[in-house]
């Protein structure tokens, strides 16, 4: 479990803190989305999860280890992997397999074990065919999958993703999201910073942040109940949800917290049936 207690972070002492008294818990196996407008502190927040940043005040505990403790920070980074937005500046190795081996190499594992982990991780992200290729010959989606494999090779319990699909085209983005979901199914705790609301539909919990504070920490369906409020924060709402909301406003009896197209289809077909019955009477 990752426990965040009263976390405060300041970049510039003359300015307002970027994180103000954050309290949260991330439990094993969770798939947590973090959303919020630009500059709300999402990135700063997740950089605290593996000790890339140290709290100015408050504490972050990863499996009972404090990120402030310089002795355990290496251990924490083994437990909490991190994937960033720009894949190109995360790849260190001169070939795909070489890059995936970077993390395990830092942990000082013996070469046969590194080999095993590299192969397993590349299979997990479906990139094993490209093991020998040079990074610059890959597409941007493939590069992002390589960075995920690089984190997986360290066998983390948690992976924090910082807008991993922002610079990807829709099909590459879909592939990355599928991998993220698959990893969560296999028991890895996922913390996913995003500003695409479609991505949060499949998560267990959504943390909404604004101006350095956590405003909401709920299930996705409950977050979407507050549609107007989310719009005021400047966040995009999934198209189907907006449609259902409009229908409701026009006086139709539909649930407003519909997030996926499949749900919308069911809801609409039952609505049509009801309308048909009404007209026949």
């Amino acid at each position, binding site marked *: 479990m990752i426990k965040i207690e009263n976390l405060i972070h300041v970049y510039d002492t003359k300015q307002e803190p970027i994180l103000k008294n954050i309290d949260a818990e991330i439990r094993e196996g969770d798939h947590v989305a973090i959303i919020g407008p630009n500059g709300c502190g999402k990135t700063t927040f997740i950089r605290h999860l593996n000790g890339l940043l140290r709290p100015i005040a408050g504490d972050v505990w990863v499996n009972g280890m404090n990120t402030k403790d310089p002795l355990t920070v290496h251990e924490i980074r083994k437990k909490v*992997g991190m994937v960033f937005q720009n894949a190109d500046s995360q790849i260190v*190795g001169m070939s795909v397999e070489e890059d995936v081996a970077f*993390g395990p190499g830092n942990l*000082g594992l013996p070469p046969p074990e*590194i080999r095993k982990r590299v192969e397993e991780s590349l299979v997990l992200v479906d990139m094993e065919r490209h093991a020998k290729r040079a990074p610059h010959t890959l597409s941007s989606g493939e590069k992002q999958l390589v960075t995920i494999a690089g*984190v997986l090779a360290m066998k983390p319990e948690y992976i924090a993703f910082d807008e991993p699909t922002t610079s990807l085209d829709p099909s590459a983005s879909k592939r990355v999201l599928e991998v993220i979901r698959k990893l969560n199914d296999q028991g890895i705790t996922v913390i996913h910073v995003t500003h695409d609301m479609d991505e949060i539909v499949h998560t267990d919990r959504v943390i909404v942040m604004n101006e350095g504070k956590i405003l909401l920490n709920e299930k996705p369906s409950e977050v979407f109940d507050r549609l107007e409020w989310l719009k005021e924060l400047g966040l995009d709402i999934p198209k189907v949800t907006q449609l259902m909301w409009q229908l409701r406003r026009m006086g139709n009896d539909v649930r407003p917290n519909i997030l996926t197209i499949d749900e919308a289809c069911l809801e609409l077909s039952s609505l049509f049936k009801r309308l048909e019955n009404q007209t026949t009477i």
Partner: protein
Amino acid sequence: MYNFGQYIPVESIIHRLDPRVKIASLIVLSIMILNSKAITVAMLSVFLIVIIPTSRLPLRCVLKALKPMVILFVLLFFLHLVFTDGTPIPPFPLWRITITYEGLLRGILITWQFFLLILSASVLTMTTSPTELVIGIERLLRPFKILRIPSHDVAIMISIALRFVPVFLEEIVRIKEAQIARGADFKTGTVVRRIRAITALLIPLVISSLRRADELAIAMEGRAYKRGPRTYLRELRISPADYAAVAIMILVTGFYILQDYPFPGIYALLFS
């Protein structure tokens, strides 16, 4: 220029040699080549000419790698041709230019030495993948730990530098296109103007590299990187072929050292 000496993956004994053996051989060969004696250079030329077919590198590729160096060779040759004192070759001195026999010989020899030097370095980089090269350098630097040379950090630095070469080339093209789209002109005007136009390319490049370096540092730290010892995917193993290569190198070096003693007369004839 980017393709200069790039790795060519073909199957050969030279390709399969341990990178440590190849790097050490290159160092020894370079010292021998630069130690200027015509007969040594001739002997080493034969040696290198035997190595190229053994490495199964297409001759065309090897020559292409040397092509950017032609200007250097020509320049080197003419400088020695013109600026060496000695006996003038008959039609000279013409006006103020004097070409001497000594200059001609010296020019040919030194140019040929440089040619061999670059040729042998190209054979190394063309038969060894960058990854192997970096591991080889790292291993060879390990004993220098006493001199506080951090072999693992040096290896990481070289590998990152090589990894980001194509990234930077892409970036330069992107910035150049963006600036041309905004009306920048890199091709016409006086030299001063063109140099000034390059700043429009350089400043964004420097800024983006700094940002990239920052992101890379954070990503590396996130993957538990710390200075000092680490392990690698690939292990180096010395094979019988490596022993053979070392034996050949010792033999060549032995000849090189010994040749001074039995035939001092030949030198007196060729060079004094």
